[in-house]
């Protein structure tokens, strides 16, 4: 099929997806007269084009969009657990040790760092803010980890640090979108959606892409950070509730037997199937699949999402408390989900935006409390995956959407009541661990203030390229046709970070 046919086919599909009752009513008013003309004007049959273009002669993938596919080449990892610290943690208090910065504490920021730059909140000439944590080297790799993360320091040998990651967005929403979808604007599929689209999922009783949030808020960018963009919506992340029942209404109401439920669902699906055969809208297939998955989830979800049955030593390891919304519980759930064959588990923890405007947002107090909340759970997650052999085939990624400035924030030109750092895009630390990642590696060097990367810088696209590589994709070949051109997660950018590959 040539390109213009592809475009027509895509248009036809898009039209079907955009038809709502409202459109229909509007059309009734304005276009009844036009109806007579329609056969004359629209010679080409959209349905046929759809069948040709999307192959809707119903392959296994059409009937079950989450059916597994082999990776294009052997990836070392088969699942991802992505720990996103929403709000952006300070690399200068956690991993990027800058003794030189301490000497400049409370001195005016050198003009050279401010020239021609914009910050989210810093105005005028701010003071420098020395590291507030105590640093030491840990493990055989000699990784620098601060006393804010005492447990993590013990497992630092398991991970590879990326110390000069940079982004180009200094506001949370766009930066989170950029980090998760490769574009700071809405409309692109998230990393998890791409991977689920490319590989499907192994456990047909569970969603392929699960999202769990903690910290009391969801990310600023909203649900688009786990959205499916232009990919079929069945590939978007399934957000489970952080507190109470993870998925509502899993239990059948009294009087509703499993068989009766089955009959109800197959009747609904029958109607949907007929609708699909009439209109050819692939979203109907997604709906059919969701009904079926909901039915199958009833078996497996209560079991996998229940942490109460875990032994006591696991609860101690993670520091979990059943029934509350916490990063610890989510880490334990992430392990359980990956163990059951879920492809992507995305954790968001809110509360890292330490501007120094209040106690909770202070670098020396609030940040320490946040660190305590994640220190044990994320270290436990690595150890638990390791002891079960799951770390061999699971990729763990940790990071925020950007970093924080080496300067004390001076919002509106005023001195803050607490120690705080502004958003910073030039250099921040992330880490990766597990399947295919070189243990104990450290890549990226920042200047003496931790302001910019001076060597081995890593862009968000580089990070995505590397994650896709570990999952078995060539990021340059992994595309989806949309609006007449193939789209990639990494757009036209991205280079593999060879130094962190095992």
């Amino acid at each position: 099929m040539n390109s213009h046919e592809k475009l027509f086919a895509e248009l036809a599909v898009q039209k079907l997806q955009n038809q709502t009752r409202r459109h229909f009513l509007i059309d009734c008013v304005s276009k009844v007269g036009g109806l007579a003309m329609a056969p004359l004007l629209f010679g080409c049959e959209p349905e046929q084009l759809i069948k040709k273009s999307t192959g809707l002669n119903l392959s296994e993938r059409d009937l079950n969009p989450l059916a597994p596919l082999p990776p294009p080449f052997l990836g070392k990892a088969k699942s991802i657990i992505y720990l996103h610290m929403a709000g952006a943690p300070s690399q200068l208090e956690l991993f990027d040790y800058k003794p030189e910065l301490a000497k400049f504490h409370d001195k005016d920021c050198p003009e050279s760092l401010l020239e021609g730059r914009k910050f989210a909140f810093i105005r005028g000439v701010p003071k420098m803010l020395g590291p507030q944590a105590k640093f030491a080297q840990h493990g055989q790799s000699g990784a620098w980890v601060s006393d804010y993360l005492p447990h993590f320091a013990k497992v630092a040998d398991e991970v590879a640090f990326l110390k000069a990651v940079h982004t180009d967005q200094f506001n949370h929403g766009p930066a989170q979108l950029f980090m998760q979808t490769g574009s700071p604007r809405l409309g692109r599929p998230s990393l998890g959606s791409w991977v689920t689209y490319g590989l499907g999922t192994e456990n047909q009783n569970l969603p392929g892409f699960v999202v769990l949030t903690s910290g009391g808020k969801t990310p600023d960018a909203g649900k688009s950070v786990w959205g499916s963009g232009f990919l079929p919506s069945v590939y978007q992340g399934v957000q489970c509730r952080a507190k109470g029942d993870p998925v509502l209404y899993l239990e059948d109401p009294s009087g509703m037997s499993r068989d009766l439920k089955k009959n109800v669902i197959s009747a609904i699906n029958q109607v949907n199937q007929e609708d699909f055969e009439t209109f050819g809208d692939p979203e109907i297939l997604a709906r059919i699949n969701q009904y079926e998955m909901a039915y199958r989830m009833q078996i497996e979800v209560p079991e996998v999402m229940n942490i109460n049955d875990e032994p006591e030593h696991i609860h101690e390891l993670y520091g979990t408390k059943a029934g509350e919304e916490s990063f610890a519980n989510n880490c334990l759930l992430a392990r359980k989900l990956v163990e059951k064959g879920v492809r992507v588990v995305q954790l968001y923890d809110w509360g890292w935006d330490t501007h120094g405007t209040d106690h909770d947002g202070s670098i020396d107090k609030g940040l320490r409390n946040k660190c305590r909340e994640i220190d044990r759970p994320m270290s436990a997650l690595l150890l638990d995956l390791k002891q079960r052999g799951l770390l061999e085939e699971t990729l763990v990624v940790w990071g925020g959407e950007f970093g924080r400035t080496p300067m004390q924030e001076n919002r509106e030109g005023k001195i803050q009541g607490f120690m705080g750092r502004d958003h910073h895009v030039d250099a921040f630390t992330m880490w990766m661990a597990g399947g295919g990642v070189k243990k104990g590696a450290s890549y990226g060097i920042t200047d003496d203030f931790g302001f910019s990367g001076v060597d081995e810088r890593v862009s968000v696209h580089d990070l995505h390229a590397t994650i896709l590589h570990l999952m078995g994709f060539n990021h340059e070949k992994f595309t989806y046709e949309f609006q007449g051109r193939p789209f990639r997660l990494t757009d036209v950018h991205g280079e593999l970070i060879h130094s962190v590959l095992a």
Partner: protein
Amino acid sequence: MLDFLGPLLGRMHPVLVHLPIGILIFGIVLCFFPQREKNNFLPAIRLAFLIGGIAALGAGISGFLQYQFEGFAWEDVRVHLVGGILTALGSFGLFFHLRKKDVIQSKGKVFAFVLGLILTITGHLGGNLTHGESHFTDVLPPGLQSFLGIEILPEKGPQLPEESWENAELFSEVIQPIFNQNCKSCHNPRNQKGELDLTTMKGLLAGGEDGLIFTAGDAEHSELFARLILPKDDEKHMPPAGKRQPSKEEIALIESWIKKGGKETQTLAEAGISRKLIEQFILKSELPFYPKTSLAILSADSLATLKTAGFFAEAIESGSGLLKVSCTNFSGFQDSDWEKLSPIKNRIAYLDLSGTQATDAILDSLEGLSNLTVLKLNETAVSGNSLDKLARLPHLKLLYLNKTGVNLRIIEQLSTSKSLQKVFAYQTPAAEEFPNSGKLSLPFLLETGNYSLPKLPTDTVVY
């Protein structure tokens, strides 16, 4: 206001050129027709050369306009342009030569033949400009291409040994291969774009049409490096946009090489090249994780049969004949279900029977699985003595026995395996015995887990 006429006429050149070509070929062919005392074709031939000449002139003018407005380089169009002028002149010449004649003498035939030759060469050069020099040769079979000596084989980049990479020669083993991979197709002895040959040290030292291309020790002022770091849309950026671009590391290596003197003999260690820069070129000595096989991919029907039976089954990677099989949604799997897998047993590279009803009897079935690399038997009733059978599997690398009844004595039986790398025995009797086993040495890594994170005073401090 009529500024557009020039560029428009210029762009008509590829259209207009076909007029003289067609008309002149017609005339030239007629010149070689058998003739008697009087050549009856002559009026037509004369007319052909007159109109052909005029058409050639028009094509030439439009061609010159195209050269002016479309930014072609003079050295690229030079011969083509001269050829076009010669064609036009030759056509008029022949017209005048034949004006008073009744027959065409051999002199006229030679003249016509030469004109045909010039026309062909000029047309071919024009085609090269629009369609590229390899327009015809690209479609030839590779064997014929290499026979004709046209083909530039895609070069591999640098490849360095895992051990003693420091002793590799910086120029011949790293820098030259980078040039060969990224630059050779346009800068080789046969095709010297910009009069530059980057395939030897001699060529590098000789430089190109603009003179020397590098100054030892000064990368910033060396064209060889500076052009690589120009923005991609810059006209002078090399390699040209659209061609393979060298990686960050490759550019950094070229920079280091120039800074260190641009010598022909100097090892990586002497030049102080860090491992990080050459990491991607180091040949990993490790064998591929899964065995290499010549098995064709399993047919969709067979795969569907396995899936209907309840298994998860997929190729380990696209196009591979090896399979990953698991019982993720088939917890009812029993030993007797093995027969559904036995037809494809040689294809199984990854087998996950975790959480199923499998017992020790399954170990007998697993015998002889020549490609089995990863085996998961977590949370099964497997615990027995016949585990030693697994030691005979030639490719088994990872064995998962978490939450089974295996003890340390049974795991020791696996010691005879030559391929086993890791055994996971978390929450087993073996895990309890292991810490006290003292001098036990196993040829593989035994992971017994039971990790804890001891409580710290800071765990409860709220700031």
